[in-house]
């Protein structure tokens, strides 16, 4: 195997996605684009967590004929980050749904999706 270990690419891509998402959250004026930025941050964090859980040469943590029980501790990747990401994806989906319904309500009230039109709570 040459070059960097494979999880480094996943980690760097995840960190880059977090940065792009932060940029979108801070720079965009359109609420839908801000929500997309949030989803990018979310996905980036998932990728970082998965990359951290990777073990060199490891395989999916499922016991079957390819991975017998006695080899499990040496051949599988860490199951805990996978379980956490599973949780995080569902929570991210719930949060995104709530944000989108806020966006729908804002559009109903103001007929605009620009964050500049929501100046009531600005200080």
């Amino acid at each position, binding site marked *: 195997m040459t070059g960097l*270990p494979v999880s480094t690419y996943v980690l760097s891509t995840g*960190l880059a996605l977090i*940065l792009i998402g932060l940029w979108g959250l801070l720079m965009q004026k359109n609420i839908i684009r801000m929500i997309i930025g949030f989803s990018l941050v979310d996905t980036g964090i998932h990728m970082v967590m998965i990359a951290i859980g990777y073990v060199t040469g490891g395989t999916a943590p499922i016991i079957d004929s390819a991975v017998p029980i006695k080899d499990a*501790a040496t051949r599988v990747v860490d199951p805990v980050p996978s379980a956490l990401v599973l*949780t995080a994806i569902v929570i991210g989906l719930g949060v995104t749904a709530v944000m989108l319904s806020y966006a729908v309500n804002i559009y109903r009230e103001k007929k605009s999706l620009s964050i500049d039109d929501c100046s009531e709570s600005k200080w």
Partner: protein
Amino acid sequence: MLKRLFIFFTLILVAAIFSDVALNYSEHTELSRLAQHYASKGPEELGAANLVTSVVVTYRGLDTLGEVTVLFISAAGVGLMLRRRKHPDTVVPARKPASELVETAARLLMPMVFVFGVYVFANGHLTPGGGFQGGAIIASGVLLLLLAMPQAQLSHRLIGFTESLSGFSYVVVGVLGIVLAGGFLDNRILPLGSFGSLFSAGAIPIIYVFVGLKVGSELSAVVDRFRSDESKPEL
């Protein structure tokens, strides 16, 4: 302009932290002690072939109950915020009905999507998948129905009944774990069965069926709420 400068500097600083993380990262060559315990003792203790499932449903089962609760609250929040007005002030022009091709294909695919969703959550302890994934597949079937037939009415009573019954049963199974086995959400209230078969791993498949039904009905309700008002003019 000043604001843009601040945003730029913020991103630069965050990027500096991230580059430090990325440059000093070295891949793990062996599992942490906790993960080693889960990988070596998990199959014997819980009988689940999918180690992620044994972590999600049993070892960290309380987290999953909390996660299901968060999903419920967000579905309830979406339902509250997007409740339909009795007199919508804007009249949306009626949408053209979908072509017969789309409708027939949706009718044909719907049962298959549902069966696949049930398959995914019933086999969550053996194969990649589980309650959340299976529930999402079922909700995607409902989304297909709503896209192909915008006039279709979902039975809210059925969705609410499925959702509350499965949530209640999930907690009941958890409490049974305290009475019959080692603690809350312990899966050993049922015999572990033969490793790798469908009826194995104690209560894990049962919990995942409840989670799948709950997630499926909640996501279907969320998807239904995001429809435009015109599809339901009589409310």
